[in-house]
C-alpha cells in the first residue's frame, strides 16, 4: 500500500462515487420519498453526472483541484439541502489539502474533518439529529484514530467508510431535528436518513479508489 494518494486517486474516487450514486439513484429517491420529498437520489445523480463531464473536460492537476471541481459542480447542480452541504464539504477539503500533489494520512484525516466542519457550519446539525452528520462525524473520528495509529491512507479511508456506514444505520431509530424529515416528528423513526447513506457511499468509493475492496 502506498503511503500517499495522488490526483489519479482523487479522480478515480469521483468516478467511482458517480457510479455508485447512479446505481443507488432509485434507492436514495425511495429513502427520501419516505421521510423527505423524494429527490435526493435524483439530485445527487444529476450532480455527479455533471462531475463526470467536468472531469473529462478539465482534468484537475492536484487532488485539491479535483475537490474544488466537485465542490463547484455539486453546488451548482445538486440544489436542495444536499447541494450546498456537499459543496461546502468539498470546498473545505480543497482548502485543507491546498496545492499538495500527494496526500498522506494526516492530511486526509484533516481534510475529512474540514469537510465535516463545513457541513456543520452551514447546516448547524449535531450528531443524533438524523442527518449526514451522523455518517460524517464517526467517519472523521475513525480517520483521526487511523492517522494517529499510523495507518495507510487506504486503511484510513476504509475505516472512515465503515464508520460512516455504521453511522448511517444508527439514524434508523432517530427522530430528525434538521432538514425536511424533522417535520415528521416520530413518524421518521425506523427510516434511514438518505444523506447519511449517500455520504457513506461516497466515502466507501474513496476507499475503493485507494485500492481497498468493499
Amino acid at each position, binding site marked *: 500500500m502506498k503511503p500517499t494518494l495522488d490526483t489519479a486517486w482523487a479522480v478515480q474516487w469521483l468516478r467511482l462515487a458517480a457510479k455508485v450514486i447512479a446505481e443507488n439513484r432509485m434507492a436514495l*429517491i*425511495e429513502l427520501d*420519498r*419516505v421521510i*423527505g*420529498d*423524494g*429527490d435526493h437520489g*435524483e*439530485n445527487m445523480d*444529476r450532480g455527479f453526472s455533471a462531475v463526470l463531464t467536468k472531469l473529462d473536460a478539465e482534468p484537475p492537476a492536484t487532488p485539491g483541484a479535483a475537490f474544488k471541481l466537485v465542490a463547484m459542480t455539486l*453546488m*451548482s*447542480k*445538486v*440544489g*436542495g*439541502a*444536499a*447541494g*450546498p*452541504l456537499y*459543496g461546502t464539504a468539498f470546498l473545505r477539503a480543497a482548502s485543507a489539502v491546498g496545492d499538495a500533489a500527494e496526500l498522506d494520512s494526516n492530511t486526509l484525516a484533516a481534510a475529512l474533518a474540514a469537510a465535516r466542519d463545513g457541513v456543520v457550519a*452551514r*447546516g448547524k446539525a449535531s450528531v443524533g439529529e438524523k442527518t449526514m452528520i451522523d455518517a460524517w462525524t464517526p467517519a472523521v473520528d475513525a480517520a483521526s484514530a487511523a492517522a494517529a495509529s499510523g495507518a495507510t491512507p487506504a486503511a484510513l479511508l476504509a475505516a472512515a467508510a465503515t464508520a460512516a456506514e455504521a453511522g448511517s444505520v444508527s439514524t434508523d431509530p432517530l*427522530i*430528525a*431535528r*434538521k*432538514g*425536511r424529515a*424533522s*417535520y*415528521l*416528528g416520530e*413518524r421518521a423513526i425506523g427510516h434511514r436518513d438518505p444523506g447519511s447513506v449517500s455520504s457513506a457511499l461516497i466515502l466507501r468509493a474513496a476507499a475503493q479508489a485507494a485500492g481497498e475492496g468493499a
Partner: protein
Amino acid sequence: MKKLINDPKTVVDESVEGFGQAHAGHVRVHTDPLFVTRKDAPRAGKVGLISGGGSGHEPLHAGYVGYGMLDAAVPGPMFTSPTPDAIIPATIAANAGAGVVHIVKNYTGDVLNFETAAEMAEAEGVSVRTVLVNDDVAVEDSLYTAGRRGVAGTVLVEKIAGAAAERGDDLDGVAAIGQRVNDNVRSMGVALSACTVPHAGVPSFELAEDEIEIGIGIHGEPGRHKIPMENADAITQRLLEPILSDLAPAAGERVLLFVNGMGGTPASELYIVYRHAAKVLEAAGLIVERSLVGNYITALEMQGCSISVLRLDDEMIELWDAPVNTPALRWGM
C-alpha cells in the same frame, strides 16, 4: 404514473419554455442557468424582488413575475431548491442599482442556496436583503425542527412586497413590509391524496381510501398526522384552529382569507371550504376584508388545500389592492 410529460428529466425546462412562449408579453426566459425575468427588467430606480424554489408549485414563482410583483423567479428542479449559479444571475438581472430582496421559503435547501447566492451577489456589488417566509403552523415546535415551512403565505408576501417595490419603497422598506406580511400570516394544509414526482414515479406517501393527511406541506411530504376522512366543514375547522390560536387575532381585526388549491382539487371544493372558513372567522369576530381562492401554490396534482389568514392593516390593504400584472395574478391593469 401518467403525466403529460415527455421525460422526467426535461419536465422543468420544457414547461418553463412553454410558459415563456405563452406569456411572452410578461416575461423573458433565460436558459442555462434557468431563470425568468420581467420582460422590462431591471426597472430603473426600483428595488428588485426575486424568489425561487423547487418546481412543482406552479404558478409559483414564475407566474408572479411582472408589474407589481416579482422581477425575477428561479425555478429549481422538481421540489428541489435552485442553485446559486442560477440565483446569482437572476439577482443581477433584477438589480437596477437599488438592491434586491430575496423572498425565500424556509427549507434548509432554499435557505442554504439563497444564502450562498446572496453572499456572492453582494460580493459583486448588489445589496441583498432576505425575507424568510415561514407561515406553516403545521410544524409545531420549531425548536426541534428545521423550523416552520414557507407555504401559501409566500404568495401574499410576494404580492404586497411587490407593490411596495413598485411604488418606490427603498430596499429596507420593501424587505420590512415583506417581513411584516410574513409575521402576520399563518397557513395550514390538508391532503386527500399524495402527488407523484416525475423522477420518483410513485406517490410521495400512501393514504388509504378513507384517510386524509392533516398539516401537509407543498412537497408531498407527509403532514402532522393521518385522520379518517371528514366532511369539508370539519376539515376547515381543523385547519383554522391552529392558525387562529397561533395568530391570535383580536375581535374586530381585518383579515385576508386565502383558500389555496394543491393542484388536483376542483374549484368548487375550494369554495365550499372558503364558505365555512369565512363563517368561522366571522364567528370569531373577524372581518374578512379581502379574499383569494384558487390554485396559487400547488404540489403538482395533489388533492387538498391550504387555508391562510393574513392580519391586515391599512397599508397592506392598499398594497394588496395596487395594480398587478403577472401571468397568474392580475388586476387594476
